[in-house]
């Protein structure tokens, strides 16, 4: 499940593939319009080379533990550096090229892959970044800390988005709880690495060209120069808080294995009949709700996760729309 991000063909049901494809096309169409308003005729070279940057940055592998390697995902990072519209567009281009040229992710899976890897990270990541900025000091350190926490949490949000899509389009008899627990658990760990790496990347850009960090445009020169290590402490405290919250959520599922009685009921097919009442006639995929220990609780958690992801993406979209102002191109003259 670790790499369910680049999902292949037929990994989720056709209904989910079509619905997510429609959502992705609409949002990327909007992103195109906003990006051309923001970047004007600089859009083609800047978005193209930024996409190449994300592509290249994903190639920087380093071992994490026990033979697995990690690399940057970069969805939320792109939003913080380039703004959510351009960020979403750029990462979507990367995802589509990876599917068409490298068979990395299925062609028919592009709807949910673009949604999970470009749209949710860009807009939910942007929303989380703005929210964390509000509790962080107005300084370089605050921006770096907020970027790290937002990027880390965004990885988990993407995993949640995938689990919710699984609820509607499961193609294997693995219940929603198992998928949700595994996805959120594994991606909480990946999120720590992503958050750390993204924070340090933003820190490096803030040190060299703070004007290129779209998420820090509102800072004055003195605030940018304020490089005290407030970020590090806030980052650590915030990180522990987030980790505790996710640990509680995941542990809800980790110990939710069916007990002996349920197992017997399941094997005799009795549970299937019993549960038909709970979810009968629902739009949920039959597979995803089969074998859930406590259907009500699981669906409540699914609902909460869905509401959280949707609200954050909506907040990101709303704030992104509000900030459409042509980019100040004062740096265009300062570059070599």
């Amino acid at each position, binding site marked *: 499940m670790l790499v369910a991000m680049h999902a292949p063909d037929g990994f989720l049901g056709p209904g989910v593939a079509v619905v997510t494809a429609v959502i992705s096309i609409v949002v990327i169409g909007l992103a195109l319009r906003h990006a051309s308003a923001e970047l004007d005729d600089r859009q083609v070279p800047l978005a193209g080379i*930024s*996409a*190449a940057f994300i592509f290249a940055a994903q190639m920087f592998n380093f071992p994490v533990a026990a033979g*697995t390697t990690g690399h940057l995902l970069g969805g939320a990072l792109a939003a913080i550096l380039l703004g959510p519209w351009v960020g979403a567009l750029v990462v979507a281009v990367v995802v589509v090229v990876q599917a068409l040229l490298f068979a990395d992710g299925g*062609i028919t899976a592009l709807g949910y892959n673009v949604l999970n890897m470009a749209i949710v990270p860009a807009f939910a990541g942007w929303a989380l970044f703005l929210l964390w900025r509000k509790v962080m000091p107005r300084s370089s350190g605050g921006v770096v800390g907020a970027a790290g926490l937002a990027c880390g949490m965004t990885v988990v949000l993407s995993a949640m988005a995938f689990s919710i899509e699984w609820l509607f389009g499961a193609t294997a008899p693995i219940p929603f709880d198992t998928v949700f627990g595994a996805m959120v658990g594994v991606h909480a760990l990946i999120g720590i*690495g992503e958050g750390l790496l993204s924070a340090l990347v933003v820190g490096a850009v803030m040190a060299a060209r703070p004007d290129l960090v779209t998420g820090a445009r509102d800072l004055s020169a003195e605030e940018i120069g304020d490089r005290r290590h407030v970020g590090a402490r806030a980052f650590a405290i915030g990180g522990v808080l987030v980790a505790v919250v996710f640990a509680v959520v995941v542990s809800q599922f980790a110990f939710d294995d069916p007990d002996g009685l349920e197992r017997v009921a399941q094997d005799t097919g009795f549970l299937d009949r019993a549960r038909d009442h709970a979810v009968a006639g629902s739009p949920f995929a039959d597979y995803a709700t089969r074998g859930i220990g406590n259907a009500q609780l699981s669906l409540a958690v699914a609902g909460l996760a869905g509401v959280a992801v949707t609200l954050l993406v909506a907040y990101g979209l709303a704030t992104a729309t509000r900030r459409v102002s042509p980019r100040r191109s004062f740096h265009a003259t300062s570059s070599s």
Partner: protein
Amino acid sequence: MSGSHRGDLRGLHVAVDSPVHRLDPAAKLVGTVAFAVVVAGTPRHAAVVTVVEAVLLAVVVAVSRIGARRVLARLVVVMPFVLFALTIPFVAHGPRTEVGGISVSTEGLWAAWNVVAKTTLGATAAIAMSASTPLPSMLEGMARLHVPRVVVAIVSSMVRYVELLAAQLARMRTAMVSRGHDPRWLWQVGPVAASVGMLFVRSYERGERVHGAMVARGFTGTLVVSDRPAVATTDWVVALLPAAVSAIAVVVWVVGR
């Protein structure tokens, strides 16, 4: 997760001459997407149909002269999903059967087969297309399928600079190593992130320089795409043949059940 396959754009196109290579890129793109859609929509219990699809794809790969070994090597991308699929019968719920003395979920077996078959067929189709179509033709094909010009232009400037940026990153890595860093480990994340950050700054500044150079040469916001004659009907028929035959097989299977 492992990324040696990524970014190697030069190795993508296999420059041999074959009927598949000569096919119009726009028709080939549509044919590939249509085939992937039919594969994804094939009912999992229709194993016969999946075999038909696999044979059709094998014929395409054989005719294209890409080489089965090259296709297999590139299929490594989907290995994580195949490995995941192999675990499904053990973790899945539902009625169980005995396979070699081990109790596994019956529907889990079907689900595993479903993931393995669709993943492999979909990926092979994409590989056959990218191996038989040079990148410029593919972009031209996209433009002629009315993909917005801006998108085509962004993709084309992306593929143009990927290798350059990857090489730049490799040079930064070499520089790091020569300064005594060991960027293979997690605790080296600081210098690794610093070079990624620098790569962003350099990429953005390169974008601005490239834009300036383009404007100086009369760039107005969109790229001119050369006009080819319209796609020949025979190209459409040939390119859509595998998808059409597979779709007929699916319909026959569903009706005949």
